[in-house]
Structure formats: C-alpha cells, structure tokens
C-alpha cells in the first residue's frame, strides 16, 4: 500500500533533508516561543484575566520582548558548578527535542518551485522537501528513545550546578522520567501490535478510513495511558515536579539564566509538540495526504493536544512525588500490561 505511495513521490535528496531540518528548527523554535504566548493567554483567560496586552496588538510582540530579554540576560555559571557539564546540559534538552522531531511528519511534503515570478531560484529550485526529514521505519521507537535521551538535560543540569534544589530536581528527573518511560512504551505497544509496524506512515495509512478507523476507538485505555505518561514526560502540570516552584524553587533550572534557561524552555515546548504529534498520528488518525485539508486536520489535532496541556494546567493541582510513583507503578503500569495482554488475545482469536 505504502510502496505505491512512495513510488509516486520524487526522490529525497540530501539537500531536501537539510532544507527540511532548517524548516523544522526555525518553525518549531518560533512555535515554542509562540507557545509561551498562547500559554499565558489561555491561562489568563481561564482565570478571567487578560494576559499580555501591551507589547504589540493583543500582546503579540511579547514573544519578541521575551526573546530579547532571554538573549541579553547575563549568563551566570555558578562558582562551584561543574562548568562544562553545566554548559552542555541545556543543549542536550534542546538538541534531543529537535532530533526527535526529525522522524515525525511535521508538515506536508512539497517541491520548491523552479521559478518564482519569472526569477529562477538558484541552488534550491526544484528540490523536493519530504514531510519526514528522516523516514526510518521504526519512527516511534526512535522518537521515544530520543525523548528518553532528552532526560539527560535536566539530570545533568541538576547534578552539575552545586545546588541542593538542583540535586532534588535531578533526582526527581531520574525517578519520574524513568518510571513514565515504561508507561509510555507499554501504552503505545498495544496500537503497535494492532498496526504491526513502528512507522508513523504505516500508522497513518492504517487509519485512513475516516473517524471510524481511528485507533482511539480500539485502544481507548492505551490512549488515556499515553496521554498521562506524555504529560509526565513533557513535565507538564499535574506532574511538573522537576521545577515545582512551591517545593524546590525551580528544581534543575534553579541556577540557570538567560539563553541557557531558554534552551530548556524551547526543549520543553518542542517535546510538548512532539507528544502532541505522536498522539495525533497514533490514536487520532494523523494526516490525510489525499486532499489538501488533510494537513490542516492534523494541525488542528496537534493544537487540540497543546491546548489540552494548557487547559489541564489551569484546572488541576500538582501531585506529590510519592503519589506520582504510586500512580505509575501501582495503577498505570498494571493497566498497561493488562491492556497489552487483552489486545494480544483479541488479535490472536
């Protein structure tokens, strides 16, 4: 099925992949900045406030103001910190978040036109830009692995900064992310068993038959589990114990300032987008490349998940670390295992 689809497409060149990577970097970084604006606005509306209003129309230029602030702030490295690791840690978070995005379909594929308004485009004219920068057939596994590698950012940041809050933050990182990694993997295993592939494209094609064929109807439990684990892995509100201001000042980010802190931030928002993309493709049918609006649909789905994360932040309180572990090991993991067993039995029968 997908082979015929692939044959119709032009060849993917290295230049196309590079262009795609640049597009992902630029757009997702911008979206991460825009995400902070959306988050502040949505949270404000839910608390019946106005949110940022004064910089630009409706406060839209607040992103620019924040960006200027982040870039020009003093970059402080504490005296007793392990300076090299301290400097590397934010880069790990940001880099892994974007590497994970390299194997998910982000935008539709397109071909750069050879001529625009009669002017020939040099070098990149006529280059085919694929929707997935690196279309490996184990996309889901790679994304999960890359997100797992991203845990080293907060972990190293907390351990290297010679600050007790940082140590607590990194201990929580190790505990929380390792635990929820298990739930993410197990919950997404059941849909993988049904589709029989680890490729995002196969997932998308398996659900091409409209809303009725979405995997959420076959795997509602896995969907809920994946959402919960996704919230924990992106460090979003009911589970944002790593930098819980009320408990551990700012956790792993206590000693960070300026652009290094900003890289943590961009990484976190990029991870949110990644989880939203995975949830949309695996459970909610993904994109539909047969017509133009198919791509609008997945952007709507991703936006919904992004909004859900903000919505939940406005509505629900934090949990304690022990409740977090209790939830993971005593509730979610058994349910995930049972779900896999039941799915397996149903597939075999």
């Amino acid at each position, binding site marked *: 099925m997908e082979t015929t689809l692939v044959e119709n497409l032009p060849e993917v060149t290295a230049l196309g992949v590079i262009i795609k990577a640049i597009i992902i970097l630029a757009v997702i970084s911008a979206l991460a900045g825009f995400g902070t604006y959306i988050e502040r606005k949505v949270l404000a509306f839910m608390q*019946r406030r106005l949110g940022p209003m004064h910089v630009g129309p409706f406060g839209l230029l607040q992103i620019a103001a924040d960006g200027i602030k982040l870039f020009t702030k003093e970059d402080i490295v504490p005296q007793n910190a392990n300076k090299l690791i301290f400097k590397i840690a934010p880069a790990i978070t940001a880099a892994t978040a974007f590497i994970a995005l390299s194997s998910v379909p982000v935008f539709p594929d397109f071909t750069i036109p050879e001529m625009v308004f009669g002017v020939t485009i040099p070098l990149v004219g006529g280059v085919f830009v694929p929707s997935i920068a690196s279309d490996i057939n184990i996309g889901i596994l790679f994304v999960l692995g890359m997100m797992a590698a991203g845990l080293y950012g907060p972990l190293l940041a907390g351990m290297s900064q010679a600050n007790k809050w940082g140590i607590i933050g990194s201990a929580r990182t190790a505990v929380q992310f390792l635990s929820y990694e298990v739930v993410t993997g197990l919950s997404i295993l059941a849909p993988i068993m049904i589709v029989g592939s680890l490729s995002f494209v196969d997932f998308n094609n398996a659900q091409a038959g409209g809303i009725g064929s979405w995997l959420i109807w076959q795997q509602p439990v896995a969907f809920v589990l994946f959402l919960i684990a996704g919230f924990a892995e992106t460090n979003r509100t009911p589970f944002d114990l790593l930098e819980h201001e009320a408990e551990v000042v700012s956790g792993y980010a206590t000693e960070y300032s300026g652009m290094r802190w900003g890289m943590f931030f961009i990484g976190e928002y990029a991870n949110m987008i990644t989880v939203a993309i995975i949830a949309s493709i695996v459970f909610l049918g993904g994109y539909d490349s047969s017509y133009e609006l198919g791509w609008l649909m997945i952007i709507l789905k991703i936006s919904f998940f992004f909004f859900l994360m903000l919505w939940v932040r406005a509505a629900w309180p934090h949990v304690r670390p022990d409740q977090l572990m209790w939830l993971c090991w005593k509730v979610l993991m058994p349910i995930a295992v049972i779900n896999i067993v039941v799915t397996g039995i149903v597939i075999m029968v």
Partner: protein
Amino acid sequence: MSLEQFKNRTVGTQVYKTLDLGETPKSGMDRFKQVVKRTFSLELFVGLWVTIREMGNALFGGNMHTVKYPFEKLPISPRYRAIHDMLRLLESGHYRCIGCGLCEKICISNCISMDTRYDENQRKEVSEYTINFGRCIFCGYCAEVCPELAIVHGGRYENASEQRAGFSIFEDMLTPIDKLNLQQEYDGFGAVTPNADENIKKTPLAY
C-alpha cells in the same frame, strides 16, 4: 427550633456547602474501592469544565476581571484617606483655611508646618503651608479637628512624583479655582458613606 436554627435566627441567609468526604478507608480493599470510585466518577472533568466555562464567561460573557489600571481606575470610597485637599469657599472662591493652626498642633507625626501673617486687610492669611508626606501617616486628625472643614482627605492615592514637594505645597492641594464647581463637600471625618444603606447587614445577636 433546633440549636443550629436558634443560633442562626437573626443572621442573613447562609449558603455554606458541606462537602461529603465519605469515610476514611480502613482496609486495603476500601482504599482500592475509593481509588476506583474517584477514577470513574469523572471528578477531574468537573474541574476541566469549570475552567473552560470561566474562559467562556471571560471572553464572551464580558466577565473579565482585569482592570487596566493606569487607563481605568476603580472608584474609591468617599471616606478614603489619601492626599489632603484644601477646600475653597464656594461663594468667594477664597480658601477656607483661617490659619488657626489646630491641624499643626494635633498632627501626631509632626508633618504639618504652617506660617501665617496679617495681610493688608488685617485678615490672617496663610503664608506658608506644607505637609511632609514622608512623615504623614494619614491618620485623619487634621481633617477631624479643622473647624472650617478646610483641610480634608481627598482621593489622590498615586503618590509617585519626581520631587517630595510634589503634593505638599498649599497651592497644589488647594482646589483649582476653575474646578470650584466640581468641589465635593466633605461630610466630616467619620461620616457615613453615601452607599451605607446598601452595605448594612443584619448583626448576629446571639453567638
């Protein structure tokens, strides 16, 4: 009449809600049941619904609570004790202060200083009148003691200026002569507020 009703007989309507928290689970099975009940009673979604409802109220119901402060201000109570105003006589437009010096005497933080002299008509006139707002504690004694209702507390509460003298010179506090028709009469320190009737509630008599 029960004791509860008796105690509440003169108090306005009570709308307290009692939360039914249920029994504290004792055994492991009870705890398990509690978890299952809480999971499937969809209480979490009530929280989600409340926030999205408030968002709708705020955006489309005109229920936004933000006051864009420097551009719009909330009305303050007429009894609010902010920067002092010096009032004028309505007929002649002359300031009301007769230079008796009572405010200077009563001021407990010693922040009012005034000087008077006789003018050409042998009337006492105020030649010097300043209030040191670095010291003033806005107790209101000066307004209370003033026999002419000349010094009162006004509503200017934004006390930021480039110089300390910004508010405290007599001419600054005096009602501008062209705004004389807008001058509010001050009922005297401790007078009831204009909307006092609305604020009256039943006093609980029995405790």
